[in-house]
């Protein structure tokens, strides 16, 4: 399967949106990038929680060529993932465009080692189904899929962004102490505690010991407090407090006092007698009426009901 303008550009776009989505859905998780080309696997980013750094590295590593070695890639990934404490969840996602693998040793050994290290391997293929890829995914509990076209590729890669369902149950619940550092002024000059370098602006101050750190999330080098940016955590809160599903309002009931416009976008709504197309939905909580477009936007992106938010908050949240 060939993609336009070329495979690498399409793959890079898919990976870039995957990285953003991954951190949206797994705010405290880390991720690292490895490229496979010319028979070798190369680490281009270390495990970290900064999407922009990964995307920058990805964009500056767009060359391709030579054979692919699945074994070298898995060995390197295993080495990278070995740093994580045992309760962490290890996963490898491979986007593979070659039709074969060119390995220095026995790939079956590597497969067994991955299984032993509890690494879940998933592969999104770009060409045809390959037996060893299928076997690897089956044996490690991952998912193997082959993309048919560009949008299918994007969908397949995106499916790996939400945490696997088993994770939510197996994770040990714990209460973790964390700090929310303040970002210092863009012109402030300070010595950072992580690199021991003088930095101008863009630093964060640990709320407990006032040390400066360069990037979030991290652990304070001085007092060991886990430091996160609170918006980072807030990205997943909409899962906790979902907006109720809106109900369709039946127009043949001929209410005389239906609102004329959508509460959200102020667009005209279909009214009883008219033959105008479109639906009108209502929030079961605040009873405000919305158009179809707003219904979709509210549930898929905004995650707030404008009607409910326009009422005084008592026990909201």
């Amino acid at each position, binding site marked *: 399967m060939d993609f336009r303008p070329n495979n690498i550009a399409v793959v*890079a776009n898919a*990976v870039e949106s*995957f990285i953003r989505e991954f951190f949206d859905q797994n705010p*405290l*998780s*880390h*991720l690292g*990038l490895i490229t*496979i080309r010319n028979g070798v696997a190369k680490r281009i980013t270390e*495990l970290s929680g900064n999407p922009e750094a990964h995307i920058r590295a990805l964009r500056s590593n767009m060359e*391709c060529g030579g054979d692919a070695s699945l074994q070298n*890639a898995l060995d390197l990934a295993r080495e990278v993932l070995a740093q*994580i*404490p045992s309760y962490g*969840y*290890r996963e*490898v*996602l*491979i*986007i*593979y465009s070659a039709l074969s693998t060119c390995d220095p040793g026995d790939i079956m050994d590597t497969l067994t080692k991955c299984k032993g290290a509890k690494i879940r391997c998933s592969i999104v293929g770009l060409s045809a189904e390959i037996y060893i890829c299928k076997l690897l995914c089956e044996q490690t509990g991952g998912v193997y899929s082959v993309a048919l076209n560009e949008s299918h590729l994007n969908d397949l890669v995106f499916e790996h962004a939400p945490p696997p369902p088993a994770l939510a149950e197996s994770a*040990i*619940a*714990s*209460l*973790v*102490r*964390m700090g*929310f550092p*303040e*970002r*210092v*002024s*863009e012109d402030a000059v300070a010595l950072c505690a992580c690199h021991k370098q003088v930095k101008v602006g863009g630093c964060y101050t640990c709320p*407990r010991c006032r040390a400066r750190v360069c990037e979030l999330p991290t652990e304070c080098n001085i007092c060991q407090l*886990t430091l*996160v*940016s609170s*918006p980072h*955590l*807030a*990205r997943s*809160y*909409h899962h*906790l407090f979902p907006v109720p599903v809106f109900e369709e309002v039946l127009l043949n009931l001929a209410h005389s006092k239906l609102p004329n416009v959508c*509460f959200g*976008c*102020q*667009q005209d709504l279909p009214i009883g007698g008219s033959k105008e197309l479109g639906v009108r939905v209502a929030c079961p909580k605040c009873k405000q009426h919305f158009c179809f*477009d*707003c219904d979709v936007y509210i549930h898929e992106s*905004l995650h*707030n*009901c*404008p009607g409910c*938010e*326009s*009422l005084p*908050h008592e026990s909201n*949240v």
Partner: protein
Amino acid sequence: MAKSNDIGQDDVSQVVILLDVNPYFWGRKSIESGSSGLTFNQFMQSVVLFVNSILLLNNLNEAAVVAFGTRSCRFVFNSKLQGRNDKLHSSPSSRLLKHIDEFLNTEDALPTSMEQTNINESSLLSGALSLALCYIQRTLKSGQPHPQPRVLCLQCKSDAPQQYVAIMNAVFSAQRSMIPIDTCAVGTEHSAFLQQAAHITGGIYMKPSMPEGIFQYLTVVFATDLHSRRFLQLPRPAGVDFRASCFCHKKTIDMGYICSVCLSIFCKKRSSCSTCGANFSQRQPTSIGLKRKSATITLS
């Protein structure tokens, strides 16, 4: 940022202004400060002049105003509706003022729930933001070359921690649609939520040191369209306050305890999570449990 193909289109703006008309703020202010400081009348006059200047800067510019108080939020002005409801004899400014008057009267008449003894004095910023984003979404969906939307939020009352989750939801949605949220803290305190909103969406945060001169700040800083901002030295934030609010008491905190399953924030240690019901075992893990590490491999 601006990816417009049409030359000239990039200067066209759609500005949705969120106006805090909280009576507790403005009422108390007029009693405390007498005639000094910013009064509600001056504030409204500045906003009216600002809306007019936006509309005059480019005849394709659009402006809408959402007023938010303590008990409701509503659109009080929309430049697109000009000539539809009102005829020639009413200017945009008089319409805006008329509707704000109506808004204040209806908000006054809204019944307070009986059991609520201590009245909530915070302004409904989350509602106003949500309304503005729904409205802008319609512009983005229109398909035709559309003006560059942005939100300007004029908040007077201090942050309402109970709205934290809703405000952040709206901010992330704005970020995804690349809508900058400009924020201006008109009151006496800096606002952590407004700072975060501007920082995340690429907008400008400002707290005027002399609120009486609000019109000056509005025209010099917030009237500039997104294209021109690249060439200007606009105020840079003196830091961003990333504090969050705890789920248990809605207090703003800079250090707290996080549930590793659902990421709820608590200000004190507790035995179970009130949001997801997770039980916190006695053993103290060294780091967070819900960690998912992944190595993505791209192949060439």
